């Protein structure tokens, strides 16, 4: 599957089927298109199309141009995919995800955890200490938790993401 198809499937999973349909319809356009034309083309309600377009533009995947209609005096929005910026936007997003993974890794490395063997809830040392090392939910005795595997997984994910980002940053800067 190419990167674009992966992006489409992520859009479908995270933003819903409407956003996927709208994104794919924009991919098939040669240029920009209004929300009303899109609704007609996709046989969808204009409101649903607009909602999907705003969701996509929140992530900077789509952009619009606003023009005032001289006859009605209303604004008409012409939408298109942010083709020029898309690779750098997605790369920026990838860097943000890496930062979250590194934050979580830092948290896992700097804390000692306890787990309730009965309901599986997890507490930091401070939380466990405050509750007298008993589970505040079920009263079970908390046990020390070895999070070395979690640390290892997060470290591997962070390393792989960093490697990918380094390569892609290089590619992007050499192509621009």
């Amino acid at each position, binding site marked *: 599957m190419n*990167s674009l198809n992966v992006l489409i499937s992520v859009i479908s999973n995270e933003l819903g089927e409407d956003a996927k349909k709208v994104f794919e319809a924009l991919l098939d356009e040669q240029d920009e298109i209004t929300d009303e034309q899109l609704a007609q083309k996709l046989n969808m309600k204009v409101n649903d199309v607009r909602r999907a377009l705003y969701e996509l533009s929140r992530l900077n995947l789509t952009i619009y141009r606003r023009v005032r209609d001289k006859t009605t005096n209303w604004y008409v929005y012409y939408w298109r995919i942010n*083709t020029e910026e898309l690779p750098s936007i997605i790369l920026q997003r990838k860097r943000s995800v890496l930062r979250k993974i590194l*934050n979580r890794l830092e948290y896992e490395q700097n804390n000692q955890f306890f787990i309730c063997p009965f309901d599986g809830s997890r507490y930091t040392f401070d939380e466990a200490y405050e509750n007298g090392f008993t589970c505040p939910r079920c009263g079970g005795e908390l046990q020390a938790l070895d999070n070395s595997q979690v640390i290892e997984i997060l470290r591997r994910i962070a390393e*792989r993401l960093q490697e*990918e980002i380094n390569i892609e940053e290089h*590619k992007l800067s050499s192509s621009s």
Partner: protein
Amino acid sequence: MSTSSKLSAEELKAYNIIREESVKGGILQPELWKKLGINSKHGSRIILKLIKKGLVQRILVEHNGRRVYKLLTTTRSILVQKFNINLNLVSEIPCFLCREIDKCSLGNYFSPATCPKLTSYILTKLNHFSKT
């Protein structure tokens, strides 16, 4: 402007096939001729018209040791070429399209330390990790 306006029936048919095939990464010219049941001379004329109208783009690719044109619709064709970012790993991580990502940091209400979606992802990875 709608893409399908002002096209002849044959051009529209060719364009629709290219559009459908673009989802899977494009279609090679000889395959399109077969699908349309026309020869390459006639087909090339149709494609040149579509290219002139900016609806279709062709990329030279190597197929079975021969150089042939692959046809794609435009915005998609631009992105297929330009967009080479590996999303296989990052797309599994829930932060990727999370709407709170800009508000999320250690100590905040939205935090990667306590995020249930991220925890659930790590646990799935942990199960996979302990099985292997």
